[in-house]
């Protein structure tokens, strides 16, 4: 991982030093990394590994007889994600800035690919591409990143160049258009959860870009109107409407649509203060909660680790987001601020929606819990995002 020059910001390390001393130097990348974020992300991934293992070790119909199947893959995904983070830091978010159009193009292409016969349907959402060998890809996860990067690139261009104080209307419209294209496709899948996250990302990006209040408020208005329109025009599938109905009234059909939320809440509620102990949750062992290694992984924490463990997950997410907010505020270039804010909006909303649905305060939407849920695409995407945050911090101008 010791690149020749990638880790040191140009202008700060002119002379060659030994790898070790460069890593340990006051201005070194390693020293400048945001360790709380990194450690939180690693901790969340490891907790996730334990929870995924607990949820899947007995599920012979899923794990093909190997109790470690999901554990191994989760760790592998985490490793790959970690490598992607290092790569992202190594490249630097500014370098990536130049590649944004390409990345954006690739991600939109992949999303479109889902609509072709190559796409596969899981849980009612046609959001996957089956690669083969048991691997699959969920392009909407990567689109989240490219939307952030693309919009940030457009919105920050003239501001960072010093031309303007705030992005003008034209730029804002361009940026919105850039986000709208993949969002429409994802909407068609339909992967409503991801669309909701993307809307929040767009909001976070606009908010942090300094775009006029009218845009921000307007977008909120359009979002609300859009939600009503979607509901009224019947764009939603029956299963999605049923999920919302079950959210509004969980007792509606406890054996049917309300089943997930009901069982999830029983699992979490029965955990109490310290939980039943890892691998000892009866709800988990009894497989009463569906999708427990992915979307409902938080219920395992709730039941087996109790308020202490589940609270720790929320706390770790809080540390990560808190530090990310600091990065967004401390970086002086708008591009970095916008990227960080987009990531914050993404993580915050996705975590809130995911945990909230298991706690019965949000409707059920198929979204993974960042770092914790089993799932390659999501894991890669969130680690790349961590890489971006680190890069923004590492590359921010030091106060002279």
């Amino acid at each position, binding site marked *: 991982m010791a690149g020749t020059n990638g880790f040191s910001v140009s202008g700060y390390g002119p002379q060659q030093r030994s790898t070790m001393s460069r890593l340990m130097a006051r201005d070194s990348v390693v020293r400048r990394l945001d360790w709380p974020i990194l450690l939180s992300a690693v901790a969340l991934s490891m907790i996730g590994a334990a929870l995924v293992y607990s949820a899947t070790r007995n599920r012979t119909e899923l794990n093909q007889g190997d109790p470690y199947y999901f554990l191994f893959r989760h760790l592998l995904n985490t490793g790959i994600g970690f490598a992607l983070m290092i790569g992202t830091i190594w490249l630097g978010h500014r370098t990536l800035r130049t590649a944004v159009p390409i990345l954006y193009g690739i991600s939109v292409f992949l999303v479109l690919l889902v609509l072709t016969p190559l796409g596969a349907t899981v849980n009612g959402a046609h959001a996957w591409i089956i690669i083969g060998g048991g691997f699959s890809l969920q392009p909407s996860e990567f689109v989240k990143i490219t939307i952030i990067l693309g919009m940030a690139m457009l919105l920050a261009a003239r501001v960072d160049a010093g031309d303007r104080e*705030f992005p003008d209307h034209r730029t804002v419209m361009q940026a919105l258009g850039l986000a709208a294209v993949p969002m429409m496709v994802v909407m068609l899948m339909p992967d409503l959860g991801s669309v909701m996250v993307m809307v929040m990302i767009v909001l976070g990006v606009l*908010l*942090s870009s300094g775009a006029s209040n009218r845009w921000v408020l307007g977008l909120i208005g359009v979002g609300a109107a859009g939600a009503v329109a979607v509901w009224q025009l019947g764009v939603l599938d029956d299963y999605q409407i049923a999920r919302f109905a079950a959210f509004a009234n969980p007792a509606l059909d406890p054996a049917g649509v309300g089943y997930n939320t009901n069982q999830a809440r029983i699992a979490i*509620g029965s*955990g109490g203060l310290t939980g039943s102990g890892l691998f000892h949750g009866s709800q988990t062992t009894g497989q009463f909660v569906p999708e427990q290694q992915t979307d409902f992984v938080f219920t395992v924490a709730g039941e087996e680790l109790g*308020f202490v463990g589940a609270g720790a997950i929320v706390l770790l997410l809080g540390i990560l987001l808190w530090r990310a907010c600091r990065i967004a505020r401390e970086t002086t270039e708008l591009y970095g601020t916008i990227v960080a804010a987009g990531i914050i909006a993404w993580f915050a909303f996705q975590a809130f929606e995911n945990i909230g649905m298991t706690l019965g305060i949000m409707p059920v939407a198929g979204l993974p819990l960042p770092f914790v849920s089993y799932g390659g695409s999501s894991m890669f995407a969130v680690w790349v995002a961590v890489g971006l945050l680190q890069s923004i911090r590492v590359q921010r101008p030091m106060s002279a």
Partner: protein
Amino acid sequence: MTNIPETGRTPRVQIRLIVLQILVLSLLLTLGGRLWYLQIRNGDEYAKEASGNHVQQVVTPAVRGSILDARGVPIADNETRLVVSASRTDLMKMEDDGKGVLTKLAGVLGMAPKEVEEKVRLCDAKTPQPCWNGSPYQPIPITDEATPKQALQIRERGEDFPGITAEPTAVRRYAGPGNSNTAQVLGYLSPVTDAEIEKAKDTESPYLRSDQVGRSGLERTYDQQLRGKAGVTRYEVDNLGRVIGRAKSDKAEPGANVVTSIDARVQSVAEYELNEAMKAARHEFDKNTNENYKADSGAVVVMEAKTGRVVAMASNPSYDPNAWVGGISGKDYAKLTGKNSNYPLLNRAIQGQAAPGSIFKVVPTTAAVNAGYPFNGNYDCSSSYSIGSQVFKNFESKGYGPISLGRALEVSCDTVFYRLAHEEWKKDGGLKGHKDTQDWFYKTAKQFGLGKETGIDLPNEVTGRIPDRQWKQRFWKANKDAWCKAGKKDGDYVQRLSYENCLEGNLMRAGDAVNYSIGQGDTLVTPIQMASIYAAISNGGTLHAPEVGKAIVSADGKQVQEIEPKVNGKLPMTAKTRDEIDGALAGVATRGTAAWRFGGWPQDKIPMHAKTGTAEVYGKQTTSWFATYTKDYSIVMTISQGGTGSGASGPAVRKIYDAIYGLDSSGKQDLKKALLPEPQKALPKIESDGSIDSPKIKPYEPNKEEPPAQQELAAGLPTSTFTRRD
């Protein structure tokens, strides 16, 4: 890139970033708060719901307690049978849902494969019996009559019979010690119904799906004590019902044993002699109907006079209580309850009611004394008594001239009581009665405990009936429409009766009052009521609520809860009156209507008191009643359509006494042969392990010898009189 201009952050962006940070913080706080609410505040509730989710219970039935006789001889206990059961949970895991195993099993058990399959299928709306009505997690019994060889085959080849068990299991057995049967007193068990489970759900002793419930007799009265508490093994299951672990389990607590006051030996004698008496009656010719007596049913009660405890209670026809064990077959059930069955399930000692005839006369005697007629006054025992155009005849128009009430009891003179009843009826205002009627004869009957349950510890006792003015009114209201419709002034007897009843069935006619005074008319009593009345006369006047249960002994023998005799009240008579009646009843046995049945009886050692009764029932042959007591026991026997009291029931009652006291036919007592010369006071000995000592008992050997010819009769009544009517 170092030349990026230090634009400085515009306040707008900075403020918005803080807004974003606050938003993020509030989202996370919301999650934390909700988490606290669910896990800490409502955690217990959800924990409960979770355990309900994934715990399945398997019930180990408690061994039902035994029912023992007074000396500890089990009359209802459990025997071990080899029960072959199938676990549905295991069968359903197999690829063919266990079909192969069941077919193999059918081969071993010698059953048809279809029969076995039907036993393990679950009952639902579309599945007719046979099917399994219990929990699918419960092992389902396929047969309880497996031979040891079959059981061994199944157990030794366990790998061939996965999910099949052959276990010795406790099954109810009615042992019938000493050839006793005691069927109606013991009652029977049958599986609990859904409605009962629902009803008992929130009570102290809820039912389990597998429970057998006492349906009648002692099994029902003491069901709760006998049943014990079933053990529950709780298995954790997953969402598909597969067992994944074991949760907290409760061990089965065996039911308590119930010690009764029944003496199996006396019971056996009573049953045998009742049956013999009925058989004998069927050989007797009834001059009134010109055919032999039918003797269709009968009952006998042997009661401890001082406590009201029941020593023996037999009802005929009877049945084998073991027919219910392991589920009764449709054929057997029809035999026990069908129209032509003569209802052997009825316990006629407490559920059979009939007019008492002359054994009732102790009541009007007491009533007369209480109304102010001196016991030793002179009352005209004329051959008949006329009220208007109606003539009420004494039995066989026999007259005795002026006699005392005591003598009237001895010779069972009807006209004495007719006259008294008519006089009282007139005093009370006749037909309609005036404001303050005394109704001595009715009031006294009620004070004797007639017209209501005695409160015996057996279910579904009937009340009998005292046809007083209030009852007549109620009865008329309920029936007048039917009477008025059917009645005809010049029709046959029934039509004329209906006609009369329609007009004035609500009124107390002189004839009603007169008929009632000798235990006829609408009067109804049960054998148990009469037994407790005669026991009360014996013991000095205390009416007990009869009891069969004597003590409840916990399975480990550590807790013994005695059931004390219960007092219902006092007979409404002074000690003097009691002594006078007692004397008269002794006279019945020595020189009155029952004397010819007590030839050779050692009256000086064991004073015998008796009263005979022959009740007329319209359209049927006469009911035989015989009520007796000594200082320790009272025995009442009745035979429906059996003839006279002393004629049909006399010998049987005498033989029961002979067996109890160890008397031979000449009246010589051999205490070694006596079954129970004194009532059994002590409870059977309980061993430290909870088991109860039970003496061996021999079947009853009836004494075929007839007692010697009757004693000399002081009154010198011709024998023929006794053979027909008392």
